C-alpha cells in the first residue's frame, strides 16, 4: 500500500474530571505516517504536548490489538471511527487524508461518566456481569470434550457472541444509550451452551435488572449498535435476549423479581 505523511487538525474533548464541564481543544499534528495506528498518532500528539510543557490528552488503551475493549474514542461522529468491525487501536491513519480535521469525543452516556478527557468509567458493564454473567453451577473437572455434545451451529453462535470485548461502542452509538447489544451477547454466549443453560432464566432477569439500575436506556431496535460494533455482534442476539427475558419472567418462581 502506498505510504504517505499528513498534517492534521484534531478537535479533542478536554475535561478535567466528572464534576467539571469540558470543552473542545484544537491541536495540530504534522508528519503523521499513514501506517501509524490512530492511538500512535495520539502518542505523537501527547509527546509533542509534553515537550511544549502542556498537559497531554488522557485516553484509555491497553492491548492495542483489538481484544481488550479499552480504546473508547468517538471519532468523526462514529464510535471507533470510520472502519467497519474495527477498534480505535486497530484503525490506521490511512483512513484519513492530509489536511483533515478529526473530531474526537468520549462515549456519551450518563451510565459512562467521563473520568478525564476521553476516558469514561465503564464500571457499569462490570456490575452487569457481576449480576449474572457467569456460571455458578459446579461443572466438575475438565472432561473429554466429546462428553458434552454441542451442535456446531450453537457452538458457532455462542463463540460469535463471546467475541464481545465490552468496549461500550454500542451504548455510545445508540440514541437511547441502551446497553442491550452488550447484554444480549453476554447472555447468549452462555445460554447457547449446556453449562450455561441451567441458569439461563435467572441470569437474564438479574442482568437486565442491573442494566436498568445503571441508567441505560431501552432498546428500540434502531440497529445503530450492530453497525458500529468492532466485533460485529449481531442484533439477532437482542431478539434472543428478549425471548429469554420474556419466558424467564413468565416462568420464574423467584420472588426477587
Amino acid at each position: 500500500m502506498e505510504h504517505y505523511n499528513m498534517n492534521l487538525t484534531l478537535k479533542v474533548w478536554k475535561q478535567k474530571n466528572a464534576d467539571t464541564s469540558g470543552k473542545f481543544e484544537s491541536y495540530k499534528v504534522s508528519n503523521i505516517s499513514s501506517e501509524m495506528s490512530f492511538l500512535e498518532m495520539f502518542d505523537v500528539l501527547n509527546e509533542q504536548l509534553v515537550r511544549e510543557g502542556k498537559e497531554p490528552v488522557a485516553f484509555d488503551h491497553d492491548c492495542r490489538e483489538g481484544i481488550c475493549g479499552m480504546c473508547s474514542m468517538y471519532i468523526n461522529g462514529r464510535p471507533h471511527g470510520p472502519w467497519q468491525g474495527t477498534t480505535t487501536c486497530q484503525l490506521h491513519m490511512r483512513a484519513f487524508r492530509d489536511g483533515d480535521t478529526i473530531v474526537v469525543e468520549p462515549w456519551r452516556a450518563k451510565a459512562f461518566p467521563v473520568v478525564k478527557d476521553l476516558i469514561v468509567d465503564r464500571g457499569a458493564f462490570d456490575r452487569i456481569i457481576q449480576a449474572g454473567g457467569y456460571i455458578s453451577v459446579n461443572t466438575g473437572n475438565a472432561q473429554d470434550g466429546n462428553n458434552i455434545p454441542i451442535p456446531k451451529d450453537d457452538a458457532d453462535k455462542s463463540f460469535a457472541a463471546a467475541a464481545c470485548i465490552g468496549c461500550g461502542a454500542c451504548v455510545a452509538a445508540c440514541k437511547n444509550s441502551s446497553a442491550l447489544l452488550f447484554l444480549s451477547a453476554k447472555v447468549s454466549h452462555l445460554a447457547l451452551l449446556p453449562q450455561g443453560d441451567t441458569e439461563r432464566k435467572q441470569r437474564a432477569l438479574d442482568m437486565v435488572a442491573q442494566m436498568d439500575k445503571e441508567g441505560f436506556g431501552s432498546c428500540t431496535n434502531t440497529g445503530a449498535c450492530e453497525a458500529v460494533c468492532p466485533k460485529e455482534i449481531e442484533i439477532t442476539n437482542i431478539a434472543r435476549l428478549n425471548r429469554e427475558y420474556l419466558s424467564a419472567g413468565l416462568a420464574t418462581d423467584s420472588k426477587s423479581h
Partner: protein
Amino acid sequence: MALSGIFLILFLLIHAGLNACIWANDGGVMFNKAAHFMGANVVPRVLEIGLFVFFLIHIIQGLVLEIQNRSKRGIGYAVKMGNRGSAWNSRAMGILGALVLIFLAVHLSDFWYPSRFGGLTNMYIDTATNQIVPAGTAGGKEYHDLYAEMQHQFTSYPWIIVLYEIGVIALFWHLVHGFQSSFRTLGLTNHKYISLIKNTGIVYSVIICLAFMLMPLSFYFGWIR
C-alpha cells in the same frame, strides 16, 4: 409497546378493510351497512373499549419511553452519527407517533364522535333491493349516513385533506419501523424470519397507508360520489 403496537396494527387492517367499502361507489350503501354492523353489534363495541385502552397504553408508554430514553445521554455529541447506522424513522418514532396522535384527535372528532353521540344525518336502504330510498318508504331501513359525512369533510375543507395526508405519511414511517420492531421486541426474530418480517411490514405499511391516503382524495376529486 410491542403488544399494544401489534394490536393497533391488527386494528388498522380491519379499519382499512371496512373503509375500502367506500370504493363500491354505491352512494355508501355497503359502507354505511358495514359501519352500522360495527356500531350495532356487541363484539365490535367491546373491541372498541379494548382499542381505546390499547391506544392509551401505547401512547402513554410511548411518551414515557421517549422521555426516559432521551434523558440517558447527558451531553450530546458534537458530530452526530445520523443515518450511518440506523434509519431516520427508527430514531423519530416519538415524533412520528406524536404527529399520528394529532391526526387521531382531529380524526376522532370528525367521525367517531358524531357517529357515537349523534350529529349524523340518516339515510334509508331498502332491505330487499339494497337501493337507497327516500325516508318513509316501506321496507326502507334507517342508517347513519357516515358516508355523507366523509364526503362532506373531504370535499368542503382542503386543509382537512392536507392534515389527513400528513397524518397518514407519519403513520407510514412509524409502521415501517414499528412492525418489525415489535417482532424483535417480542423475541420472535432470527436469521430465518427477519427478512420475511421486514418485508411483510413494508408491504403492510404501503397497502394500508396507500388505502388511507386515497380515501380523502377519492372524495375530493370526485372519483366516488
